[in-house]
């Protein structure tokens, strides 16, 4: 694969990769770094790209793994306990999100951000990016059952919160 083919085939998926990395890391700069790292790894293995059936899912899986590595090293560095750190980082809005989004969007962002990690990943891949169940299995390295259970729980949880807001204004 030459540089021009790489640019049209792989580099065009940068926004998808970036959104997924951002969803996991909640930090724009780190998400960009991860995407860059993914592209360099793909480029270094470009001779084997023909063996890959679905290169986009493959890139997404690499994005997930590299992002989780960063989260792990971040947690190791953190002085706070892991649980405290997890709650603070995932349930809050980034400064950019709080200025960009209107009130209802901010509310939903908080709902999604407060979901457990797997559920967040699955709902993002299905409802934002529109991947098939098979692709999600490949990206997250989960079986079909786990993917569907996580998606069901994520959607139900968000729905429940939306109904509560609507009924009681909470």
């Amino acid at each position: 694969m030459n540089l021009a083919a790489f640019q049209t085939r792989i580099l065009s998926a940068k926004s998808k990769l970036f959104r997924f990395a951002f969803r996991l890391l909640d930090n724009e700069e780190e998400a960009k770094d991860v995407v860059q790292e993914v592209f360099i790894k793909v480029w270094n293995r470009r001779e084997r790209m023909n063996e890959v059936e679905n290169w986009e899912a493959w890139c997404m899986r690499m994005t997930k793994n590299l992002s989780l590595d960063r989260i792990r090293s971040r947690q190791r560095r953190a002085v706070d306990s892991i649980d405290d750190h997890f709650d603070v980082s995932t349930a809050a809005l980034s400064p950019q999100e709080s200025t960009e989004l209107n009130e209802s969007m901010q509310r939903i962002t908080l709902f999604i951000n407060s979901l457990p990690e797997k559920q967040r990943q699955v709902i993002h891949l299905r409802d934002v990016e529109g991947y098939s169940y098979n692709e999600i299995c490949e990206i997250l390295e989960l079986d079909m059952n786990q993917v569907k259970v996580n998606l069901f729980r994520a959607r139900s949880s968000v729905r429940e919160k939306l109904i509560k807001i609507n009924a009681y204004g909470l």
Partner: protein
Amino acid sequence: MDSRQIESLLEKYWNCDTSLEEEKQLKAFFAAENVPPSLKETAELFSYFQNQRQRPLADGRFDANILKKLKQASPEGNVIKMFSNVAKIAAGVVVLAAATYMVRQEVRKSYPAEVADTYSDPKLALEETKKALMLISKGFGKAQKEASKIELFNEAERRIKGKQDEKKVISNI
């Protein structure tokens, strides 16, 4: 699409039974303006998804930066393979040249000293050569002088011999 169809699709959606195609229909429905108020909160959720989907990696220099990095870090590819082959051959040639040079130096060291040049300036060498030749020629001149004395003896001998012959002839007469 009427509201009953939407209701049933939504029910399927919450139960995770919708196909990607059906989810596309729902997205299209909620992207339109005339969503009934009863579905307001679901519309908000779908609008959130759409909003997220449209979020790009907004960095004008990202592509240029990544392409620059890819050009630097290229362990594979034909051009690189060709370069590494050429580099291997070049390294071999350098090693061979270095070995030849060192062997030559060693051989020169072991050569007899008199064979080696003693003068670096050709004019000086010429002067010295002339001096040496003059010395030899002076030696020759001296030898010739001495040799001419021998000629004198020879001449005397020849004359004496001549006179003796004359005497013999006379006595025979």
